[in-house]
């Protein structure tokens, strides 16, 4: 199984869609937004603009990283029959599924780290070592429901619609989740919706830790609920496919 995960990861690092959308785009958007909104001034959580935007873009990049390694890829593998071939190897379904999940989570790390490095290099964002560590760890754990959501899409959706569907979801979760513009600039209803989204909650974890606020019950609650919902959907979708795959 380690070989399976290692190869999946190597494949992610060569995947142009992953590299462009998950790695290059958040970096580009970070530089664009810090340029547009100015490097000074404050947004939500009382963080300096460059730090606050950095966290938003870390969440944004991590989100596409886990989506790209799951939804479109799994749907495509199902369509071309690679999934079926794997099922007649000693790789157990549980190992195949958890391998996909681990690969997706691993793919988030370079995307997250590179946005952080860009922020440090371009705008000298400063956090304590403990804050960096806690922030990245919490946000990384926070993308779990998004990875599970990607798995669910991969096993539910047909190959042709998995990519546009994932892409639409990615933009919607980014925009509505306050990663492009702060939720505080939106109407109240939109703010309520935004706060219930996993994208906003992942960023919220980072903002709170970077802002020195330890308590973040809402974000944790939202992410736990999404983890349960997405996890169950993924399992249901997977089992549905497994039963039908050999017909």
């Amino acid at each position, binding site marked *: *199984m380690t070989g399976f995960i290692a190869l999946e990861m190597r494949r992610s690092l060569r995947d142009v869609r992953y590299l462009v959308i998950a790695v290059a785009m958040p970096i580009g958007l970070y530089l664009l937004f810090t340029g547009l909104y100015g490097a000074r001034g404050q947004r939500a959580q009382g963080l300096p603009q460059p730090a606050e935007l950095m966290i938003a873009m870390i969440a944004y990049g991590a989100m596409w990283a886990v989506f790209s390694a799951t939804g479109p890829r799994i749907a495509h593998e199902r369509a071309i*029959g690679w999934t079926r071939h794997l099922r007649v190897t000693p790789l157990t379904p549980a190992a195949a599924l958890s391998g996909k999940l681990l690969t997706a989570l691993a793919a988030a790390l370079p995307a997250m780290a590179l946005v952080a490095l860009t922020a440090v290099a371009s705008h000298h964002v400063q956090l304590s070592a403990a804050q960096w560590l806690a922030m990245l760890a919490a946000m990384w754990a926070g993308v779990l429901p998004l990875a599970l959501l990607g798995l669910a899409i991969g096993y539910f959706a047909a190959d042709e619609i998995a990519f546009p569907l994932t892409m639409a979801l990615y933009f919607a979760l980014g925009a509505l989740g306050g990663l492009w513009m702060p939720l505080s600039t939106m109407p109240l209803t939109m703010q309520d919706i935004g706060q219930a989204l996993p994208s906003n909650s992942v960023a919220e974890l980072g903002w709170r830790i970077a802002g020195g606020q330890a308590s973040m019950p809402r974000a944790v609650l939202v992410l736990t609920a999404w983890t349960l919902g997405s996890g169950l959907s993924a399992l249901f979708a997977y089992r549905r496919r497994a039963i039908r795959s*050999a017909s």
Partner: protein
Amino acid sequence: MASVRTDPIPPPLLEPGTPQRTAAEDRLAVWSAGLAKSYGSTVALAGLDLQVAAGETVALLGPNGAGKTTTIGLLLGLLAPGRGQVRVYGRPPSQAVAAGLVGAMLQDAGLMPGVRVGELLAMVRGLYPRPLPLDELVGLADLGSLLRRRADRLSGGQAQRVRFAAAIAGDPLLLILDEPTAAMDVQARRNFWRQIHGFASQGRTVLFATHYLHEADDAADRVVVIAAGRKIADGPPAEIKADFGDQQVRFTLIQGSPELLDALDGVRAVEQDHSRVTLHSGDTDATVRSLISSGLRWSGLEVGGLDLETSFLRLLGDRT
């Protein structure tokens, strides 16, 4: 039909986890009894008894929709049987697959996209407890220069070789192939069966589904014919061919008594249209040999057969 082999008494069924196994059971690569599967009201398989001894190459022959792919799905644990039982090397199929005893080439099964062939095969080998050495795998599947190519950018024939390599990478005792040559041209087919022979000659068991009688005839030690979800024949290829591929010998009779035609070896029926004679034969080789030594004068010899589809229809008609 004289050549259809009746099944020997099946061995006592082994419950999973039963420690004692007889040597005879261990030697059976595949054993099924009353294996049945339906999809809703559609019966895909209606009670199949199948035995494949270790080291045998067996063809599962039948027209489209006969139940071949369903049988293979059941043998690989991809499907759960509706009724009946199936064992692969004495184990439930999914356990045999998990133990790396089985390799398979499924119909339309693709390769992992985005990686090189060499990387793909290294990963697949890593899934098995005792994989084939890489150089042996490269030789058996004729991979040559393909190892550095992207697995999703191969021609049809190249992809087929890599799929074969992925199926045998774990050095399985049993290789299962579902219509492996469906998309191949004649040359690719010939090469493919040469590779299968190379693999099978090392004592492995091969079970393949096909709807080509000549392919079953060329490649298999034994042919199991299924149609409409039932086994309708089981025997050596020559017997199956005699029963199913109604072969014909045609020629123009120039001189000699037509009464002699009935007495030629292998002849089952004689048709005559003026001087053009059609002999229906169970063994065209023998018929032609005895025709040559018969003293009859003839010209324009043709040897041919009915296609399998027609044979199946005829046979199913006989049975019902």
